[in-house]
């Protein structure tokens, strides 16, 4: 196995019930890079993230993180590996019954025996990194969507992970928060010396901050390249996606019977 990749997805097939979500997909995430996985909703990109995090296991193939085969780890080994991973969920998934500070301190308290004073300093430093040290005593319900996302980000970097997973980090944010989150992802990746995987369909924002892009459609990688290569791509699907065109390889109409036929049956009924 090559040493340059932190994550390797090798020939992975996965499906829920009978519906195949991923079909023999392979991709590599080089160490230290910020990589985006893009595609339409439901193309299997979140599933890919769950496979890398070990929440689901592939039916065929292998997922390797830092040389360990994720799908063959015992629950204890998986938990050990996860201590070195951070994940930002789509809507933050903050614990709603404790304050921002306690959310950030949660993992430190669970996994270390550090004295309270040190935990306080660490958690405040993480909040400072996302610019929300002043909001440490607020409850999640008192935070705006963008602030909640930043607190969740601070929580996910609490133990200085080597791998950051972002599930739709830009979804539902105003333009300013969106820019802030984008910059934070990039900056934290540098300062932590981590590797980041961003699953998103927000093309404009993602292309500004990522090193490499994988495009997925119907469970396979259909295009890949640097941000510049993707922007200039001649592939019809990528072009439609990047430029947000209404019609193209992805049709506007959901498959249906002929319109005339549908209208006539409705009248008859």
């Amino acid at each position, binding site marked *: 196995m090559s040493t340059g990749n932190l994550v390797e997805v090798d020939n992975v097939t996965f499906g829920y019930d009978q519906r195949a979500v991923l079909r023999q997909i392979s991709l590599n995430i080089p160490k230290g890079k910020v990589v985006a996985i893009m595609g339409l909703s439901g193309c299997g990109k979140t599933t890919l993230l769950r496979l890398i*995090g070990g*929440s689901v296991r592939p039916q065929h193939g292998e997922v390797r993180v830092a040389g360990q085969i994720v799908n063959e780890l015992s629950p204890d080994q998986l*938990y*050990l590996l*996860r*201590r070195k*991973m951070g*994940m930002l*969920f*789509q*809507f933050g*998934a*903050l*614990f*709603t019954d404790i304050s921002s500070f306690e959310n950030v301190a*949660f*993992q430190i308290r*669970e*996994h270390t025996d550090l004295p309270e004073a040190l935990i306080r300093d660490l958690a405040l430093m993480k909040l400072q990194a996302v610019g929300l040290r002043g909001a440490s005593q607020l409850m999640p319900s008192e935070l705006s969507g963008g602030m909640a996302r930043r607190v*969740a980000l601070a929580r*996910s970097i609490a133990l200085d992970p080597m791998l950051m*997973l972002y599930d739709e980090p830009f979804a539902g944010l105003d333009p300013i928060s969106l820019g802030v989150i984008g910059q934070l992802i990039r900056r934290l990746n540098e300062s932590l010396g981590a590797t980041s995987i961003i699953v998103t369909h927000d093309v404009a924002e993602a292309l500004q901050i990522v090193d490499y892009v994988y495009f997925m459609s119907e469970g396979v990688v259909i295009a890949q390249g640097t941000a510049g290569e993707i922007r200039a791509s001649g592939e019809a699907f990528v072009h439609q996606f990047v430029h947000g065109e209404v019609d193209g390889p992805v049709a506007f109409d959901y498959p249906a019977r002929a319109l005339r036929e549908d209208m006539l049956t409705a009248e008859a009924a």
Partner: protein
Amino acid sequence: MMMQRISELLRQLGAYFTGMIWRLGFAARFFILILKHSGTSFRRFHLTVREMYFTGVQSLIIIVVSGLFVGMVLGLQGYDTLVRYGSSEALGVLVALSLVRELGPVVAGLLFASRAGSAITAEIGLMKATEQLDAMEMMAVDPIARVVAPRFWAGVISMPLLAALFSAMGIFGGYLVGVRMIGVDEGSFWSQMQSAVDFDEDILNGVIKSFVFGIAITWIAVFEGYDAPPTAEGVSGATTRTVVTSSLSVLALDFVLTALMFRGN
């Protein structure tokens, strides 16, 4: 056509029952998982104490008030019946035995199911729906050890205490109505109660009942929450099921336990 309908009906019935048995299997495995991951609940007992505040302490008002009223009604009804046989001094015995043996554990159990059980299901279900449980797992913290087990043990510990309090309040209510209002002799009210209520036979059996109900109710509540579909209607359905299933379980278990404990002799 007719045959087809019948076979379709049979198939649905079969699917319904196999579905139920599957769920029962999941619930049983879930119960074993809770027991296996209970270490945290006791090593870090403050986690359990915190949940006892939500399930136990916050149920106090409903338990105390209901206990008082049930006892007062028992006092009125009991006196009305006993006085026909000229044995109204036995009112204390009647009130105490009804409460300690039956009404305390059962009514407290039903109230606990609807007050605390529903809250546990809704909370865990919503934590699941908002990905908080997934987030916890990704942080290498087991939600069963950290979220489910402390709530389970908090419920199991709280329930006998609440039932005991319910009985105590009920006896006090019976005393208020019987002795203070109606004028039954205070000395015989208490002394007859003291000599007729047996510690092992009555009080201990009542405590065992409330303990068993506590296990059943909180088990159902945490399972329904953890198993709830992560949507608004999924959580609301699970909450309803918790109240219905655990109330029925309390009544059914009460019959079984009573049959085992008292056997009509």
